């Protein structure tokens, strides 16, 4: 909950005005929602601006975001938490997490976010480590962000369809940092990959991140994990999502690297 949700306290007696006495032209047709600034604006396709030259953008521009509804595999809710005793307030923790988001990730995993930081509507490129020294090129949309949480949503072709919410709250005198993923594997290839070690790798990823986040605040703490299978059914009608599979496309891109290296001087010479 953002601080903007707090009702202003006042000891003064409010002046009571009969609504019928207010001229129609000063009555707003729809009061703006108080969470409006926290959500990304509506978009149909993702676009990336100002990506650094080393970031590979194969599978983000032109893609739509996908919720768990559009995914293929079983639906999982995975929650990772770490208690940070004597640490910052939830708002301070989230501000720090937003600012240094990539710094807490495991090595060889790159998050190329906008210079302005994590804010609703921003798109970040991800270049992630895969087996065999391959790099998976994908991205995320910052779907929602307030003072005590932010949510990233995945595009078509990502390993999973869904979102991950990072939040902080107080519990028993400590600040708890939490990463909660609601996901389905995006297609049958990813579903098999997740069962053959992908889920374990994801656990390692977020536990590493939370451990490093706690260490950033000078606390050595072991994160805990909770896993719930929300839906055991696979959505076979979504099997065609495989056409966007970012891992397959990234693999093909990697195989083409020698050809691109040979062709590069000719491309430069040709202007």
């Amino acid at each position, binding site marked *: *909950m*953002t*601080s903007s*949700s*707090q*009702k202003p306290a006042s000891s003064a007696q409010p002046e009571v005005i009969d609504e019928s006495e207010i001229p129609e032209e000063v009555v707003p047709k*729809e009061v*703006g*929602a*108080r*969470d*409006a600034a*926290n*959500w*990304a*604006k*509506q*978009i149909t396709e993702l676009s990336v601006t100002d990506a650094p030259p080393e970031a590979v953008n194969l599978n983000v521009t032109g893609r*739509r*975001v*996908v*919720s*768990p*509804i*559009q995914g293929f595999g079983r*639906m999982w*809710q995975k929650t990772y938490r770490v208690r940070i005793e004597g640490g910052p*307030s*939830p708002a301070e923790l989230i501000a720090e997490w937003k600012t240094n988001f990539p710094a807490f990730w495991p090595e060889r995993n790159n998050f190329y976010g906008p210079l302005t930081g994590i804010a609703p509507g921003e798109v970040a490129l991800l270049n992630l480590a895969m087996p065999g020294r391959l790099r998976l090129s994908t991205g995320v949309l910052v*779907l*929602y962000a*307030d003072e*005590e*949480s932010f*949510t990233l*949503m995945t595009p078509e072709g990502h390993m999973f369809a869904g*979102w991950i*919410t990072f*939040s902080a*709250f*107080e*519990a028993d005198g400590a600040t708890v940092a939490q990463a*909660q993923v*609601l996901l389905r594997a995006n297609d049958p290839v990813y579903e098999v990959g997740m069962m053959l070690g992908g889920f374990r790798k994801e656990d390692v990823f977020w536990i590493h991140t939370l451990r490093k986040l706690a260490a950033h605040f000078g606390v050595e703490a072991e994160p805990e994990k909770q896993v719930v299978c*929300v*839906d055991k059914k696979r959505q076979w009608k979504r099997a065609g999502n495989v056409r966007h599979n970012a891992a397959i496309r990234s693999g093909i891109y990697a195989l083409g690297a020698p050809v691109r290296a040979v062709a590069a001087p000719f491309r430069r010479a040709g202007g």
Partner: protein
Amino acid sequence: MITAIEGGGNMAQSALSMDVRRVGERVSIVDIRGDVTGASEEALTDAYNRATSSETRAVLFNFEQLEYMNSGGIGLLVTLLVRANRQRQAMMAFGLSDHYRQIFELTRLDDAIGIYDDEQAALAAAGVS
């Protein structure tokens, strides 16, 4: 009526209340008032349980008095949708402001949750004339 007070620690206290109305044996309406966040799980689940029976074929969520929703609230709607699908029920929404309608579209919930302007239109879609 189901009422929940959400929040803890230094979080703002915000109320969520829900009424459940049955329209015949096959359709129920859940009237939502207040804030829907990740902390609303118990209240939403209770309301959904009250709204459903073995005969229920459609659950309509009335968002006319929704005051605030964050991504945690959207996640809860997805998990309720899974439960509804499992029980072969349609899940519908009406009374969304333009802002929340856009959020349903952005998060692509509108692929699976039918969105209608008002109660009359939602009831008609649910087969209640």
